[in-house]
């Protein structure tokens, strides 16, 4: 029997690497369902048969836990890093000024309501005081991977996304980016939750535990996440 792991979109590049390792270490085959954290949380609320939920924030898993969808309290497994990113070699040293230039017609961000990376981007933009000025330029992606698509296809000149995009060895596109000053946004503390669907399922518990293993942390680090 396969396990279903719902992951926040920012984990997509990481997951490709993790999958093989999980199989090796725990013997479990996992099916990965990805989307924005908020979208997955809504699906779980409505009966989606997922076993483990890896969110891009802490809020969604905590709420689910409160409402009885989890088996045990949510745990943080990593801290994400927000970047500004482009296919063009733009000079990001003063990105707030850059974004206000006329030649930057569109800026992609994740949907702040459901994608934690989108929310982080909004916070950063608000803190630098340019969010309102730029409002006509925003293009909102359903999840952070849609933002990635927009950047990679050149549909937008610049977007806010996860560091794991540029750390992905599978990505052959040359990207230019800069990490956003962590002081500009609340830490992206990514939590996970063992869901009630996995009750009594030893394999699920094993895989859940794996995400806290040194091996998991090593892979997360490779992709630019902070782990403690």
């Amino acid at each position, binding site marked *: 029997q396969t396990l*279903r792991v719902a992951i926040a*979109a920012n984990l*997509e590049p990481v997951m*490709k690497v993790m999958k093989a390792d999980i199989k090796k270490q725990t013997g479990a085959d996992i*099916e990965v*369902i*990805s*989307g924005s954290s908020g979208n997955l949380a809504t*699906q779980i*609320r*409505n*009966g*989606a*048969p*997922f076993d483990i939920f890896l969110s891009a924030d802490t809020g969604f898993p905590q709420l689910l836990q409160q409402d009885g969808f989890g088996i045990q309290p949510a745990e943080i497994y990593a801290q994400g890093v927000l970047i500004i990113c482009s296919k063009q070699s733009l000079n990001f040293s003063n990105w707030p000024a850059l974004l206000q230039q006329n030649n930057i017609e569109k800026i992609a961000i994740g949907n702040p309501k459901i994608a934690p990376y989108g929310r982080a981007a909004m916070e950063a933009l608000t803190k630098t005081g340019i969010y309102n000025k730029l409002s006509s330029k925003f293009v909102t992606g359903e*999840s952070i*991977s*849609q933002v*990635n*698509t927009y950047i*990679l296809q050149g549909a937008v000149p610049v977007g806010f996304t996860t560091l794991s995009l540029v750390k992905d060895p*599978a*990505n052959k596109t040359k990207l230019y980016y800069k990490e956003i000053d962590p002081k500009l946004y609340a830490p992206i503390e990514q939590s996970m939750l063992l869901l009630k669907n996995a009750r009594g399922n030893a394999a699920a518990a094993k895989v859940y535990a794996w995400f806290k293993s040194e091996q998991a942390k090593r892979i997360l680090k490779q992709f630019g996440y902070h782990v403690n």
Partner: protein
Amino acid sequence: MDLSPLILSLKLGAVTTLILLVIGLPLAWGLSGRRSLFKLIIEAIVTMPLVLPPSVLGFYLLVAFSPEQGFGKWLHKVFDLQLVFSFKGLVLASAIYSLPFMVSPVKSAFQQLPVSLAQASYTLGKTRWQTFWHVLLPNIKPTLITAAVLTFAHTLGEFGVVLMIGGNIPGVTRVASIAVYNSVEQMEYATANVYSFCLLAITFIMVLGVFIYNKYQVKGPLD
């Protein structure tokens, strides 16, 4: 490469089209007859899914069938039937969603037939059903085939509803249209291309086959 999304899509399309042929044809026929307030209302209801964006339909299905509450909970408890995040649910949703694509064109075609055809059949002692099968249906065959193809294709193209109540579960609800979306999101453009191409190729051949069949129906030397 994982072929299951393609197979799933074709299966969904085929099952839905079959169900809608069985339900939709008699319905279309019934609606094509004399006007009455009752029929007008039925007709409006049948057409509803048409004006429903898939996300709206998905939303209401989610609310109705979510096993956490109300009707969905009851279904789950009593029949162990879960309609969200399951193939059965997709079939139900697709059938609702595509119903008007079967019914509307077929109904119009029935209306275009001269009444005397059915009358002639009745005088031969044939029941309404016999008349329907042997006289009316064969005479709207081009429209019938078109409607079936539209329905099948519309189901293959189903995306919004599936995204809403499908949950993207491999082998169960991850149909091809979702798989393409996913591949793109995961930057696996090659996979996206392959899925797209297969889908196109299969259905293109199917559609072309239907057209050729449709065109080369018996025609005489003076047509």
